[in-house]
């Protein structure tokens, strides 16, 4: 995140994204329930910024990433592609007016007539900007701008294609340049990710995991994208090689102003990579903040537990740790109210009944938890908060879990 007053343009503006996977059962394979993989996720991705998306396995991280590329169609919600600043502020105010629909009401069908106008206007904006309203042809063009690097470098490269074919395939699909230009681009891409140009005549099995992942990155870069989903790009790699890949990703971002959605369950990696972090639990966002405040002063009990669970490679450092009991509940039958209340160490009676709203508790620090009922109170106080947190890390330390 570039922290100099002026905000960089938004690449993707994700609003109320939901994905319910049907559970089929019964006599005729009718729909007997839903797995609420993603249940109302909203955030913005700015140009040149890395958003870290963290959470335990099965919390919906990967589903979000894939929906942003339309590899999975969402059940409802939108991702607005490059809204102008005016559209962006209009979107914010319109979504502010919408009544908070609980997950039971789902697709925004039960909306009062008063907000009918809001819904209509949103619909118009969606028709113009939302990824999910693009025609197949428009979408195909856009796909060059939105790319993905997959988790497993061993299964994401075709074993029967030469590296040069793997890298030039996206260029051919998008009719980019002449044959000679494409060949030149392949060489350039290999150099970008720190491989030798002669590697283009090899097959994927001749490379180690780290090298394959770099080929995956080069393939994602081929069409000069604006936004790349990195779906656990280093979890299959060794630490020494992981550092190589992370450094390449950082360098490419600086060179090409790429926006990343960095999906990972490895929080130390996210801390090293991300500018802002979104913490998900069971399909919903529980906390969202810039990286430093999130790691130094996590607010949500889940984030605190997640952070304290990470082992630190320093034998002299002994910490109090919050050990969460039990496993993540099934997303097919999520707990009522706050979804974390079954494992929360600070659970209150209200937690099992009311779903906590997402509130801006500190400047640019959003959290959905009943422990923080106020948010930023008034506009004047908000101004003060903003002034106080100019240099980011000097914000007053009130709560610290680590």
């Amino acid at each position: 995140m570039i922290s100099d007053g002026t905000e960089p343009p938004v690449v993707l503006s994700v609003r109320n994204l939901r994905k319910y996977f049907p559970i089929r059962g019964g006599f005729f394979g009718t729909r007997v329930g839903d797995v609420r993989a993603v249940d109302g996720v909203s955030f913005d991705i700015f140009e040149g910024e890395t958003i870290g998306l963290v959470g335990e396995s099965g919390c919906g991280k990967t589903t979000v990433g894939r929906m942003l590329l339309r590899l999975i169609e969402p059940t409802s919600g939108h991702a607005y592609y490059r809204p102008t600043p005016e559209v962006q502020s209009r979107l914010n105010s319109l979504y502010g007016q919408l009544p908070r629909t609980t997950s039971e009401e789902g697709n925004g069908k039960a909306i009062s007539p008063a907000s009918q106008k809001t819904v209509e206007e949103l619909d118009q904006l969606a028709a113009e900007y939302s990824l999910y309203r693009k025609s197949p042809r428009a979408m195909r063009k856009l796909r060059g701008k939105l790319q993905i690097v997959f988790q497993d470098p061993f299964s994401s490269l075709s074993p029967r294609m030469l590296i040069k074919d793997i890298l030039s395939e996206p260029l051919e699909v998008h009719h980019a340049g002449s044959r000679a230009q494409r060949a030149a681009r392949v060489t350039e891409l290999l150099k970008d990710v720190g491989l030798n140009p002669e590697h283009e005549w090899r097959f994927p099995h001749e490379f180690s995991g780290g090298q394959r992942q770099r080929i995956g990155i080069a393939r994602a870069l081929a069409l000069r994208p604006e936004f790349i989903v990195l779906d656990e790009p280093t979890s299959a790699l060794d630490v020494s090689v992981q550092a190589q890949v992370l450094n390449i990703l950082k360098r490419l971002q600086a060179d090409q102003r790429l926006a990343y959605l960095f999906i990972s369950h490895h929080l130390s990696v996210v801390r090293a990579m991300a500018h802002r972090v979104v913490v998900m639990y069971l399909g919903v966002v529980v906390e969202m903040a810039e990286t430093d405040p999130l790691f130094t002063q996590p607010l949500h009990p889940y984030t605190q537990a997640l952070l304290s669970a990470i082992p630190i490679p320093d034998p002299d450092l002994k910490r109090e740790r919050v050990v969460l009991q039990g496993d993540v509940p099934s997303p097919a039958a999520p707990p009522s109210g706050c979804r974390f209340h079954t494992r929360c160490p600070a659970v209150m009676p209200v937690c099992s009944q009311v779903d906590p709203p997402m509130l801006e508790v500190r400047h640019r620090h959003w959290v959905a938890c009943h422990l923080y009922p106020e948010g930023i109170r008034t506009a004047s106080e908000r101004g003060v908060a903003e002034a106080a947190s100019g240099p980011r890390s000097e914000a007053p330390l009130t709560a610290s879990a680590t």
Partner: protein
Amino acid sequence: MGTGDSTEPYSSPMALSDDSAILRVRELRTYFYTYDGVVKALDGVTFAVRRGQTTGLVGETGCGKSVTAFSITRLIADPPGRIMSGEIMFRGADILWGLGDEAKYFPIGDTGRVKVKRKFRRIKAANERMSSVRGRAISTIFQEPTQAMNPVFSIGDQLSEVLLLHRGITIIDELLAASPDAPAVGRAGADLIDAARSGVRQEIQDAARKFGAAARTPSLGTQAFYIARATTSRPDQLRRELGKSLNRVRLGGTVRRYLRYQRRLLEIQEKLNKVYLSEMTDRESHAVARLRLRRQAGQLRLTHLYYRVPFVRSRVGSALSRELFWRVVGLLEGVSIANPVQIARGYPHELSGGMLQRVMIAMSLSSEPDLLIADEPTTALDVTIQAQILELMRDLKTRVGTAILLITHDLAVIAEVADDVCVMYAGRIIEQGPVAEVFRRPLHPYSQGLLASIPRLDQPSKELKSIPGSVPNLISPPTGCRFHPRCPYAMPICKQEVPPMTTEGPQHTVACYLYQGPVVPP
């Protein structure tokens, strides 16, 4: 001396000079014979695990961590793998005794490849011998709990089998000594019914334990607790159910006879295990004693052939299997599983990875082993579950006093739980020492690189350094120090000679030419 490999010149078999070591591995070489060539997965690995301590074995993928673990319990699949030479001493027993007789090697021309002739009878004998060590003395937690469990048996059945095998004699003795009709039982039962009415978990638990103690069967206490939990508000039903639970330890003559038969079988097995262990300790064959015991067991089975009839078996065996089931529930409680009764009745596919890993831990600790080999126990798990498992392992170390060999690629996990650490690279240990010492002052350039490449939560601004290149191919590994192609300080000598292990501080040894401390004798 068991190794028939004459290229290994070492003097008399090393006695356990240092009593603090429970496991001592010396110059272990494990090769895999593949069509591409001989993979020298382990090439002279030497280390020790101290009694009651956790030793970490850390390194990148393919450096031979897991092969070391499998070699110690001799679980290397043969073919293609083979332990070539070395010495593994576990509490005075030579695990690799007789290794040299198990296979012969004939070089094929000068291709560098060999023809291996395995003597499968010898290998089978070694396997039988190892069964006296595996599970009861050294148990293993495997990396993938989903693949380590059998999908067609319930969790309870699988754990029962382990329990019967390792603790069967005590279990049967306790079952035979049960006193369901002692006067104290009635009183304890009444107390339990009162406690159940109060509904306080702790009270129910204490009362249930007393109930079990009165009947002289602890497992009955576990059972009574879950019955009481389920029927808190219905005292009549609770009374009925408690009566029924007592019935399961009221044994008839036939059942007692069956239990005594089982006990005799287990006793013979126990004696056989002792013979196997003494074979490995004395390094000589006790074939006569072994055969006699085998024949005894065979005769016993033959004269009680009717126990094999399924109908008879289920009738006479039900008392034992129910006893085992409730003991399994107790075990699962020990690894903090919330609803052990349902879990014990369930099958592996119904559980999440973290739960299964805990079941695996319960299974491997049920025999109270002297050494636990944990092969990447938390790699497949989420951080929150990992924290639970590490907590559990630390707790077991202090409670049971088990020595742990913890294998992982995650240095942070090592820092959290281990006492000593060995850093492996390409089939060799390149640095070892106490955790605090190695982390504070890593000496080998590889250890330094490894530590510098971890992204750290507590030092976010740190530049991530990477080690250039990747792990070498072990079919034709680099000459000399195997790290030299990636080493920033490589010198000419590194290419030619394998650096010796030198002492560079209290118990801190390193194999690198940058250091010139006193050489550790191999």
